[in-house]
């Protein structure tokens, strides 16, 4: 009898949890009919926000990959003083409240900020521009990529690198012929997570870049500005973000399962579980 009770309790708890997670998602899609949902997406606010989000996200992810990949490679393969400090620094934005990140960015790059006078001497004013959105997204989303990249590079057997070198191949070509192909799936998984995080960025962006339509108003900011004016439009934008997130998550899982089947190394090193 006791056993049956326990099974029921476990089943109930699981059902409640899953329903709780599912309900808001479902609500977004059943709020209106699909036809009206699509028509609401054609408003200028939505179009502008979509363009701003897409543009800033792409530039931010390019910066993250461009600077994050070498950084991760150095941290993963070199032993230098202060290395663990560097790892902590790379992960810091992950635990920092986004509002704090926004204030910090203002304090660093704002007109009165740490680098404010240097930047204005160069004729650059960052806050409340589209570049500020890029900076905020880069700051907040980069740890997800860099962490995964460090794990991916650490997962490449150093003997494989040594083997390539003994076969007469230079360090640079070894990176492109051995290291990168073996770390590729981990890097892509990190990028997917970083992209999802950047797309949903709200706190740091609103503090550092503001919410100006067609300039700095990304989809999450547009949802916030619309929800007391036009709730239906806000919901429609929410649905779009959910769809993008689902696509990212599914491709991430596919990547990770491909990674674990194509190489003998476990994918658990990416700090993500493929099971479940």
């Amino acid at each position, binding site marked *: 009898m006791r056993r049956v009770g326990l099974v029921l309790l476990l089943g109930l708890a699981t059902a409640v949890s899953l329903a709780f997670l599912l309900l808001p998602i479902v609500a977004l899609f059943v709020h209106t009919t699909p036809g009206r949902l699509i028509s609401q997406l054609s408003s200028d606010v939505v179009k502008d926000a979509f363009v701003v989000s897409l543009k800033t996200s792409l530039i931010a992810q390019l910066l993250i990959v461009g600077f994050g990949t070498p950084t991760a490679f150095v941290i993963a393969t070199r032993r230098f003083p202060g290395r663990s400090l560097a790892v902590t620094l790379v992960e810091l934005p992950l635990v920092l409240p986004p509002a704090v990140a926004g204030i910090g960015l203002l304090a660093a790059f704002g007109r009165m900020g740490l680098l404010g006078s240097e930047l204005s001497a160069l004729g650059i004013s960052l806050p409340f521009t589209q570049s500020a959105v890029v900076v905020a997204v880069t700051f907040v989303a980069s740890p997800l990529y860099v962490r995964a990249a460090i794990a991916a590079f650490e997962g490449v057997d150093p003997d494989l690198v*040594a083997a390539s070198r003994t076969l*007469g191949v230079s360090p640079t070509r070894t990176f492109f012929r051995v290291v990168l192909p073996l770390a590729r799936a981990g890097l892509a998984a990190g990028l997917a997570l970083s992209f999802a995080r950047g797309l949903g960025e709200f706190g740091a962006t609103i503090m550092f870049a503001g919410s100006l339509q067609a300039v700095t108003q990304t989809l999450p900011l547009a949802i916030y500005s619309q929800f007391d004016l036009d709730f239906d439009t806000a919901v429609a934008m929410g649905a779009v973000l959910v769809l993008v997130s689902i696509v990212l998550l599914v491709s991430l899982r596919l990547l990770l399962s491909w990674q674990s089947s194509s190489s003998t190394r476990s994918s658990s090193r990416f700090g993500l579980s493929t099971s479940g």
Partner: protein
Amino acid sequence: MAELVLDEIVVPLRSFDLRLSLDVEGTVALVGPSGAGKSTILRVIAGLVKPRSGRVAVAGKTWFDSGRRVDLPVDERAVGFLFQDYALFPHMTVRQNIEFARQNKAERYLWQFHLDHLADARPAELSGGERQRVALARALARNPKVLLLDEPLAALDTHTKATVRRELHELLHELQIPTLFVTHDFEDAAALADRVGVLVEGSLRQFGQTSELVAQPADPFVASFTGANLLRGRVTGSSDGVARVRLPDGTVIATTGAAAGDVVVAVYPWDVTVSIVEPHDSALNVIAAPIDSITELGNRVRLAVGPLSAEITSESLRRLDLRVDQKVFASFKATGTRVLSSDV
């Protein structure tokens, strides 16, 4: 002229300095316990580890010389390096692995190493023996001037090992490339190498042909590594060139070596005769004890009798009908012993 010269190499390791001078012609094995610095030597030659000082030269060309500040990068040293776990590129096929160095087409090597049918397979699909053949093929396809093998047989199971050892022996014989390989298994060294160096805690204890190491081990470590029984005792007297050594349990051993004080007497298992009745022959030394264990090694059998390990054929085992716990007489001649000073 030696093809591979290591001249006063010094590498600081965790608890000791590795110091080595060695000329390699033909096939040389470095044996010794784990952590003795064997693999480090291979990595020094390949340029993967930088020594504090010394000189490495191959075929007359200097690869490293601390005095003249020569230090060729890894990819400019023509080494064929066989890694312990073979380090095959998992994202490439067998053919792509072999052609990785882009110096030779794979065909010849696929044929030579019986890998034709596996050309398009990935390393994960191969058996241990096949991986070893791919790794060797890949190392040779880069036209090496020296071959470095790190525990080439350690990753293989016992059955595969015998076959691969035979193949490797033939290959090394044909190649005519100076080869240095490290192993912790003296039998592998004896089977494959022209000369064997025993490396313990970073220094070469003895270097010579296998037969020399067995006939004249430099110290108890080399003796035990070459497979000898070691009996510790104290010399109680000598007459007519025969010294008597008293073991801790009171047994007295006769040996032909000249020695005094605390000594170690080395006896090889194949010099020990086992009988079920007390022998009356020329053997001066008889140890009567029950058989502790019987271990089959192919067509040979190892018997543990008291402090001794004796090696007999499977046929003898059957003929004498020996069993564990049975009391037997293990005997060996005084001339079959080597006396070594015990201060090591």
